[in-house]
């Protein structure tokens, strides 16, 4: 399925084992679906949770990386001599250091060097040091003298293909041929339309900005390397580090128990892993290397900017006749999917027989893009959902009604594969009802400078089905307490808690008697990175299979001891009871067989997804905003998210994902933009949290309603869950933009809707009006 490549291994997966016991769909649940505080809440609020940046090892050094200050340059000469004599410095590396003679790839399409002579973006690694303190390491960076040949830059995606634009790669600045998708005949579709609207939109680049900085601690024990890394996937990091250092996987252990956020920017390894490993080997001491916040703004990924021309045709009755989209997205200095998936909603969200999408990915002299919470989708939604709103206004139809009329039953973007479930219609209708959409729309915007308006938008997410591979092990101890072992990271979504709830559901073991160990390539099972809203639908069926395997063995043991047939027994609340005679029972802790064995082990794997179905989450979001026509300020007053993500596993962490996705979407809509100096230097001018403004508590409403449209997807997997983390942020920004339009009559096509952007538009509208 398109989109999965970001999170799974490439290519088809050999048949995976089904994981033992056959899992029937849950009809009722006792633990799953309730509101459960996290099983690791204590560690996270007490300060005892050890994040990778907290790791302090005996005799540890601190590493730092010198980065190219130019967007495009050749490194002519690096003079390390004076850096070596800075107090506390223990190792210095640059491109010609034999230890640093290593390959690197941003994507597998282009191989480069760890310290490459060509820097294609500001922030590319040029040299590195290790010193006794981080302050001394920074001193040493300042002492390194580098001679650059500064080359011309191009930082805007719209300029990259201009004939006079400097060439970043040998073959030019276009990454491959444009990707063209067609179905039907758009020319015919437009000719059948009563109304055709066309507009060009742009979303600014966003920076992931997880609160824990990117970085790691590396330590060698002879030939074996251990890395404590803040990552969404310990296994992808292990694979890349081992392959680039050319050592066996068995000699690289990656540990990432806690991690402070990633949002797609921590799915795999970075250059800093290799740098830390080389510095640690060179000095025979552990090395801690964490980037500064300013570095993370430049070189660990971004949501790439997108320019989107969209044209749509609609009949008076609301039938969509044609959709045509041209996307230009920027990968940055190396191919990184700059235009990837921006057109997916145009292909798949609404019923439309005639669609054409052309996506062009270009190179610019900026940091390479990385997957960022629903890659492509919020950008595409910004365009599509504003345009659909405009169509509704044009034909005098309610925007909710127009969308409901065009809800598809089949995934048109996948050659009409049926969805395993789709709750899009319910999201739209139930969301509108709960929000009070119709009443709110009728309300006048107000007479003072503050004008009110409501807006809504819908979305789907290309992935969110999860899938193999995944292996999970559940161990039941002699006293009836359990241990769950999985390789997946808990990136803050509550993965550990959800999986413990699945074990509690099947075995009746209370949550406080379940220990979860995870995210360690040395001690836990293989898992793909946590991303793509696939972690719960991937790991929860595997966990359930493991728990059911434990249950099967426990019931066998109990049957022997109670001298009853297995079919007559059930396990609930930690007690095996006869269905016929409830007096015949045995608590787990009293099972002699379990006591003698010490442990019962169940291995579960993730079974394959059905081949003939498309499994996707859906969403509709509604908001009310207030816009000050004198100052251009926008305040979001309330939000409601109706989400179909299949079964709700933990209502408390579910709601948290919803409010988090909306908060991030408000950032895209109102405050966040990477700003580059395109005129003079090509350098970043928004490299900190004052100049790049993340939403704070004052920027988001306390009034956010999470309305799950709960349709357990039993055809998709054995827990019926679909992904949640990304769909919650897909329609958000577009809903805000539509509400701003409702309040002011001004259509803001470029993100973010800052006062500086909005005020001239309001002034222009006043002049026209």
């Amino acid at each position, binding site marked *: 399925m398109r989109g999965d490549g970001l999170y799974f291994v490439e290519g088809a997966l050999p048949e995976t084992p089904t994981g033992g016991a056959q899992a029937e769909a849950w009809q009722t649940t006792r633990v799953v679906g309730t509101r459960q505080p996290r099983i690791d809440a204590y560690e996270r*609020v007490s*300060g005892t949770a050890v994040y990778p940046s907290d790791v302090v090892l005996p005799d540890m050094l601190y590493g730092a990386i010198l980065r190219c200050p130019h967007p495009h340059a050749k490194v002519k000469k690096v003079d390390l001599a004076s850096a070596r004599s800075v107090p506390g410095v223990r190792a210095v590396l640059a491109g010609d250091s034999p230890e640093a003679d290593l390959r690197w790839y941003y994507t597998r399409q282009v191989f480069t060097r760890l310290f490459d002579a060509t820097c294609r973006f500001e922030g590319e690694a040029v040299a590195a040091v290790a010193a006794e303190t981080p302050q001394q390491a920074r001193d040493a960076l300042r002492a390194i003298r580098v001679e650059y040949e500064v080359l011309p830059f191009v930082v805007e995606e719209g300029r990259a293909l201009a004939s006079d634009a400097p060439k970043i790669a040998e073959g030019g600045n276009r990454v491959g041929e444009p990707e063209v998708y067609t179905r039907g005949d758009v020319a015919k579709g437009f000719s059948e339309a009563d109304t055709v609207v066309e507009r060009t939109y742009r979303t600014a680049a966003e920076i992931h900005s997880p609160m824990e900085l990117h970085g790691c601690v590396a330590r060698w024990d002879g030939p074996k390397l251990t890395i404590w890394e803040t990552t969404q996937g310990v296994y992808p990091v292990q694979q890349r580090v081992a392959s680039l250092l050319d050592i066996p996987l068995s000699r690289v252990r990656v540990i990432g128990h806690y991690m402070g956020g990633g949002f797609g920017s921590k799915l795999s390894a970075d250059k800093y892993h290799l740098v830390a490993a080389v510095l640690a080997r060179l000095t025979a001491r552990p090395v801690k290397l964490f980037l500064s916040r300013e570095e993370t703004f430049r070189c660990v990924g971004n949501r790439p900017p997108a320019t989107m021309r969209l044209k749509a045709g609609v009949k008076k009755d609301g039938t969509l006749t044609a959709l045509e989209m041209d996307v230009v997205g920027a990968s940055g200095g190396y191919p990184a999917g700059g235009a990837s998936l921006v057109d997916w909603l145009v292909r798949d969200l609404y019923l439309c027989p005639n669609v054409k999408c052309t996506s062009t990915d270009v190179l610019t002299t900026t940091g390479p893009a990385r997957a960022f919470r629903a890659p492509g989708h919020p950008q595409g939604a910004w365009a599509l959902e504003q345009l659909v709103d405009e169509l509704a206004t044009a034909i005098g139809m309610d925007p909710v009604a127009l969308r409901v009329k065009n809800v598809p039953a089949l995934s048109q973007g996948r050659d009409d594969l049926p969805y395993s479930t789709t709750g899009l219609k319910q999201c739209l209708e139930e969301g509108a009802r709960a929000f009070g959409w119709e009443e709110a729309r009728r309300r006048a915007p107000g007479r003072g400078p503050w004008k009110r308006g409501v807006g809504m938008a819908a979305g789907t997410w290309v992935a969110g089905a999860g899938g193999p591979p995944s292996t999970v092990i559940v161990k039941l101890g002699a006293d009836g307490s359990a241990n769950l072992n999985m390789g997946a990271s808990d990136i803050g979504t509550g993965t550990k808690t959800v999986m413990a709830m699945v074990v509690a559901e099947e075995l009746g073991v209370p949550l406080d008697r379940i220990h979860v160990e995870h995210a360690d390539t040395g001690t836990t099972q293989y898992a793909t990175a946590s991303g793509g809203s696939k972690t719960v639908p991937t790991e929860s069926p595997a966990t359930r299979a493991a728990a059911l395997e434990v249950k099967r063995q426990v019931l066998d043991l109990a049957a022997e001891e109670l001298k009853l047939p297995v079919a007559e027994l059930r396990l609930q609340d930690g007690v095996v009871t006869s269905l016929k005679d409830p007096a015949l029972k045995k608590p787990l802790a009293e099972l002699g067989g379990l006591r003698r064995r010490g442990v019962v082990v169940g291995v579960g794997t993730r079974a394959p997804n059905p081949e003939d179905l498309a499994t996707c989450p859906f969403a509709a979001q509604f908001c009310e905003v207030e816009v000050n026509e004198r100052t251009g300020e926008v305040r979001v007053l309330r939000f409601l998210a109706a989400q179909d993500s299949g079964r709700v596993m933990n209502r*408390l962490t579910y709601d*948290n994902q919803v409010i988090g996705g909306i908060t991030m979407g408000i950032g895209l809509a109102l405050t966040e933009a990477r700003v580059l100096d395109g005129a003079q230097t090509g350098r970043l001018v928004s490299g900190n949290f004052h100049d790049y403004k993340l939403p704070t508590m004052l920027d988001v409403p306390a009034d956010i309603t999470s309305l799950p449209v709960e349709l357990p997807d039993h055809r998709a997997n054995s827990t019926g869950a679909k992904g949640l983390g990304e769909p919650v942020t897909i329609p958000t920004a577009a809903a805000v933009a539509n509400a701003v339009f409702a309040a002011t009559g001004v259509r803001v096509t470029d993100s973010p809707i800052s006062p500086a952007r909005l005020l001239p538009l309001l002034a222009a509208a006043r002049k026209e009006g």
Partner: protein
Amino acid sequence: MSDDNVTRHLTRRGFLTTVGVGAAGVAALGPTPAEAAPPAVTEEGDMLRVVLKVNGREHRLLVEPRWTLLFVLRERLGLTGSKAGCERGECGACTVLVDGVPRYACMTLAAEAQGHEITTVEGLMDGEQLGPVQKAFAEHDAFQCGYCTPGQIMAAEGLLRATPAPGREEVRLGMSGNICRCGAYAHIVQAVEKAAGLRQGGGR
């Protein structure tokens, strides 16, 4: 229009300006004990002898004048509850209490913190028991990845020490110097309001 018209002019930037002078503020908070006064001029590479009182315990240390309180807490004292998020007074992950008032530890030099009571998230614990603010954050799921959480908790603790029964807007304003990229703000508001109740009710 809502009732927070009065606070509209107080932006996050304004709040940060207040907090951002943490270092100067700390120095001005009270008289520094004369016997511990640092020498007027230090040579490059000189280490200062300081005594830091953290969570009621005194630590005698040699520090470089440029070391921040955050660096000393995390990398020298093993108190890693306080987090490094930006190291320039913008995100609040490093928030600690200095004499009961929230301060950004990344903007406070270790040498300046001498002579003051420093409280970190570890200091809110009663043995192995969570304090009321910590308990409320756990119950209300007022975090996701948890990295900004110790800073949020210390900001809340400082707010509630100064304003035991804050209104909704006071909570939003008081917590606005702490960024949560996971975006758990709506739960954080609930947790702070719950914590106010827990603290008033004697706490635990």
